């Protein structure tokens, strides 16, 4: 694939990712492993895309944008990392080390866009009151266009100017620094895991947390197998609790009937 076409497709992918990730559609979302695969496909080296995407995926597990909160843009980091790794031949560690800061800076665009959108929202409502109903859709599409810019701007800059800069920087960075970032890549998944645990009923189901750990650390069962065991446990617990729930509601209605009868007797 010619270099120019690759550049255009990577920028288009960034635009699509911004759109998809902002909706309930989520076919690619900004999940690093999927985006990494797609960038790899565009750039002509799927395996590099998968390795960088997979690494970033594990790093980002559980670091979710709940309720519209702001988190590093791992999808953008993936596009930047895979693009530069294939163009410059940088290692996985270096690619991630360059991609992550871009992902963190992109976060600032996200905040700016959410502020600008406020203006669009008021404009749209003003049109409603002026009875210019058709224009309301246009304003919304304009918002969507601006929303895409939050990924398109940083990715375009990287695509246009990134390669020579990264090549130059690669000569300067000392080994301990890139090693340090590779080590950080191994340790960072812990943040996502910590956040997941904060959202989950850890105290209620501590048993399963420990079981999962033992199954992986001592028995060495692969994660898919552990997920299946977990699924079995979940099914059993669901059946148990659902039965309890129906019994409760049956008991509740029976009580209601008895209460009614009691009232009748009192009268």
């Amino acid at each position, binding site marked *: 694939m010619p270099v120019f076409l690759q550049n255009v497709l990577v920028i288009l992918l960034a635009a699509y990712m911004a759109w998809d990730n902002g909706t309930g559609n989520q076919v690619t979302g900004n*999940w690093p*492993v999927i985006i990494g695969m797609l960038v790899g496909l565009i750039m002509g080296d799927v395996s590099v895309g998968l390795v960088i995407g997979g690494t970033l995926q*594990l790093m980002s597990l559980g670091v979710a944008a709940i309720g519209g909160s702001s988190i590093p843009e791992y999808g953008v980091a993936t596009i930047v990392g895979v693009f530069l790794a294939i163009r410059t031949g940088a290692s996985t560690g270096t690619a991630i080390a360059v991609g992550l800061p871009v992902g963190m800076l992109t976060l600032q665009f996200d905040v700016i866009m959410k502020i600008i959108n406020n203006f669009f929202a008021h404009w*749209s409502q003003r049109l*409603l009151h002026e009875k210019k109903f058709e224009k309301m859709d246009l304003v*919304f599409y304009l918002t969507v266009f601006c929303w895409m810019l939050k990924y398109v701007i940083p990715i375009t800059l990287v695509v246009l100017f990134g390669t020579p800069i990264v090549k130059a920087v690669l000569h300067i960075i000392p080994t301990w620094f890139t090693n*340090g970032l590779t080590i950080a890549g191994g340790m960072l998944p812990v943040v996502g895991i910590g956040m997941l645990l904060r959202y989950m009923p850890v105290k209620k189901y501590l048993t399963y947390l420990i079981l999962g750990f033992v199954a992986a650390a001592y028995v060495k069962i692969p994660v898919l197998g552990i997920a299946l065991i*977990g699924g079995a446990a979940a099914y059993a617990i669901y059946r148990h609790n659902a039965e309890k729930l129906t019994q409760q509601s049956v008991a509740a209605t029976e009580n209601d009937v008895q209460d009614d009868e009691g009232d009748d007797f009192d009268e």
Partner: protein
Amino acid sequence: MSNNTQTETNNKLTIKERKNMFRRWIFFAGLGYNFESQQAPAVAFSMRKALRKIYPNDDEYIAAMDNHYKYFNATPQMGNVILGATLAMEEKDGIKSKDAVQSLKTSLMGPLSGVGDSLFWILFPTIMGSIAGYMALQGNPIGAIIWMAIYIGLYWVKMWLFNLGYTSGTKLVTSLGAKINVFTDAISTMGLMVVGSLVSTVVKVYTPLKFQTGKVSLSLQTEVFDKIMPGLLPVCLAALVYWLLGRKSWTPTKIILLIIVICLAGSFTGILGIAK
């Protein structure tokens, strides 16, 4: 009021128009997100066409639409249920339902997002992400492809949720609410098992430090930590991060930066090394 009967015969939406509303929501839910009314612009966008048919009268239309420019925030996949129920109410009662619609929206978005966020943003991406991420590290794209395929399939699940909201409306909270909670509660055991396994497999902390006493050298990692428990250091790190996250002054971003600084310092001094 002949005008009134006129609107009542016209304002029933066809299946096609309802699906159109659903698509306008699901493909645009979070776009237009702002800090003041959050997802409201997308709600207004998705309801606009359907409500125009329900309210041919301009003033009623404006009043009804104003409602949908008010604060709204829900997991997009779950917002369907709420908007479906809203649509049914407005179709049935017209502008009289204005206040009821608003209170339905505000009362449903909390509980449904609680379920939706943990399912669609935490549990499912964690499980799929760890499986697909692992496969990808070995150069295998199947995990990522399956993930995409499942998410495409979810389109019909979301459509079903939308129809559920439309047909059962307000009854939904009471009849389904408890059952959905039982479901999320149960499925979080699956999530916790996966998370438990991730601590030992995904988190990598390795120290190349060795103690030298005369001719005997003792590797701290393989002969001390690994002997006590496999994954001892990752478990300690996870416990520390879990504790830090519970403190108000520590945001995830700060913790990420802290870890990067520790790793750079560890690499510089040789206390930390790249895990084998």
